[in-house]
């Protein structure tokens, strides 16, 4: 037993030596595995990061968040998205009055525009919202106040700035009660929102200006219908109840027969987070695809170079056999060489992958989680590639006839 252990040790030394003798070739051979493993690391890092941030995103949207969007309507049997908003202020009021599971509801009109304060200007998103909006988004005013019910009824030209907008238009922090011009319409700043940070997709959530929805419709967009409603269920348990109640009420108000297709769509916070995660997952899967392809190509590269190596070293194999190497010694020597190549590639790939994952995380603003598991998996994959693609050349070497191999020039 001890003998065979020492012998195995001896054979691994033999394998290592021949890799050390061909450094550049070994590195180039392992390149495919390097890239493959790096892709595995990056994609797993992104995947884990997304999973971790889905729950974070749910919280940042506000608890029990529900989104109601104008949706498909049926025209002559074909379901299409008309782009025409079907949701009205009256719908919002009715939901507030008649749906007990809904705690808050607010229109949420989105537009974008240039805003100017003194000599500074900034382009940003503009939300036209109702009085419940800070409660729904769990997003409070840090300085000053939110606009009032009266402002909404009157369509007052008042605005609450997101932290990023405030920083850019009022670097001195004197935003409150100043005047900004949005699309050439003067607005009085009543408050600045607390900082919320980047969203999961990397956009800056604080790059926003919030105005009364009435003002947004009349002054900034010149339209009547609301784009979208956002609501908040009374508690986490009541999210589904709230969605059911809203659906029933809106179908009734929009005169949609029971069983007919609604002309609106609803998404809960969870569904939204999942939908967003899907995009990132798509990217992750793409990387995983690249990983699989480059691992296979890398494996074939190793097989190729090992076949070359076996041919090149036919004489060496003959010598080893003549002086007593058995088939399995030769097999193990070449198998070990292949596995060492691929694991070495795996090691470089892990380093490269961790670096790349961090870089991508920073560049794209994606959350990145590098787990020891991913590194272990990557190593296991690399070793498997080595064994799988190294076996054939190794067996070829082991089956050589010593007489022919010795005669080989």
């Amino acid at each position: 037993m001890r003998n065979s252990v020492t012998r195995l040790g001896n054979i691994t030394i033999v394998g290592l030596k021949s890799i050390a003798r061909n450094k550049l070739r070994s590195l180039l051979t392992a390149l495919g595995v390097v890239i493959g493993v790096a892709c595995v690391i990056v994609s797993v890092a992104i995947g884990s990061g997304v999973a971790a941030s889905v729950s974070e995103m749910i919280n940042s949207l506000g608890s029990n968040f529900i989104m109601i969007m104008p949706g498909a309507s049926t025209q002559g049997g074909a379901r299409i998205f008309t782009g025409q908003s079907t949701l009205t202020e009256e719908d919002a009021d009715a939901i507030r009055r008649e749906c007990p599971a809904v705690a808050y509801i607010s229109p949420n009109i989105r537009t974008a525009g240039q805003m100017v304060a003194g000599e500074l200007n900034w382009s940003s998103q503009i939300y036209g919202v109702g009085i419940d909006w800070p409660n729904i988004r769990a997003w409070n005013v840090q300085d000053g106040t939110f606009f009032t019910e009266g402002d909404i009824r009157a369509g007052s030209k008042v605005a609450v700035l997101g932290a990023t907008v405030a920083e850019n238009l009022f670097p001195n922090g004197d935003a409150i009660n100043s005047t900004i011009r949005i699309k050439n319409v003067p607005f009085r700043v009543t408050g600045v929102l607390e900082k919320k940070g980047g969203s999961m997709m990397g956009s800056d959530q604080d790059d926003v200006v919030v105005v009364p929805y009435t003002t947004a419709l009349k002054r900034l967009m010149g339209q009547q219908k609301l784009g979208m409603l956002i609501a908040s269920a009374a508690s986490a348990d009541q999210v589904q109840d709230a969605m059911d109640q809203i659906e029933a009420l809106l179908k009734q108000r929009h005169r949609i027969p029971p069983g007919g297709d609604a002309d609106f769509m609803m998404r809960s916070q969870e569904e939204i987070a999942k939908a967003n995660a899907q995009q990132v997952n798509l990217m992750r899967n793409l990387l995983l695809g690249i990983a699989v392809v480059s691992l296979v190509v890398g494996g074939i590269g190793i097989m190729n170079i090992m076949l070359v190596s076996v041919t090149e070293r036919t004489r060496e194999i003959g010598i080893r056999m003549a002086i007593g190497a058995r088939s399995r010694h030769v097999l193990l020597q070449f198998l070990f060489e292949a596995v060492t190549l691929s694991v070495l590639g795996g090691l470089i790939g892990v380093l490269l992958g961790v670096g790349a994952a961090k870089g991508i995380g920073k560049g794209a603003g994606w959350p990145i989680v590098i787990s020891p598991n991913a590194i272990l998996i990557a190593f296991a994959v690399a070793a498997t590639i080595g064994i799988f693609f190294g076996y054939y050349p190794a067996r070829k070497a082991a089956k050589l006839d010593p007489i022919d191999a010795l005669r080989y020039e």
Partner: protein
Amino acid sequence: MARAVIDIRDLVKIYTLGEVEVRALDGVTMRVDEGEFVAIMGPSGSGKSTLMNIIGCLDRPTSGSYVLDDADVSQLSRDQRALIRNAKIGFVFQSFNLLPRTSAMENVELPLLYGDLGYTRAKRRDVARDALHRVGLAGREGNYPSQLSGGQQQRVAIARALVTDPAILLADEPTGNLDSRTSEEIMGIFQELNESGKTIVLITHEPDIAKHAKRVVHVRDGLIQQDEFIEQHKVERKGIEAPVAPVAR
């Protein structure tokens, strides 16, 4: 009577090339006793290479028996033959057959990596160093084959053949790639080893080399044509760089 190390009876080897049968050995019987120095001679195509391959356990006879060092080795499997080669046969080849980019020491240690001796690393180094000393290469342990002359490379190969203390040394045209002066040196080493008790089988087609042996066997057309003891041509020991005694460590 001395103990037989090689006992071959009615050895036949038939190669089938397409539809043609070639009888490379056609009933060879010979015996080599312990401590002998035998040269097997014959022109190319005579069957001496086939005989060497079978004596060296690289190949199996079609029929006949071969007892090497009291063990019947004529019908062993591949791996069993590998074990026998490792333990009982020390090969010396015409083209030295050292591993390139591998030091003399490591080349000599190589058979010990595959055998059943189970030496520790330190023990392997000791044995390999001793073998290099015996062939007069003390101080060359770290040299690569490319840094050694042909004669020195062949000495490394002889050291490698000695390292497992085999029953026979099997030398296949060991001087074929060497000039005549170096050839003499190498034959001197073989004679020295033989005098210290090693059984040596030398395969050659050169009468000048064969005369260094004590007995010459002529092979022709797969048969032993002549088997005679000769007056050994002794190499003068002068001029061999050979501190034979082991150097103190």
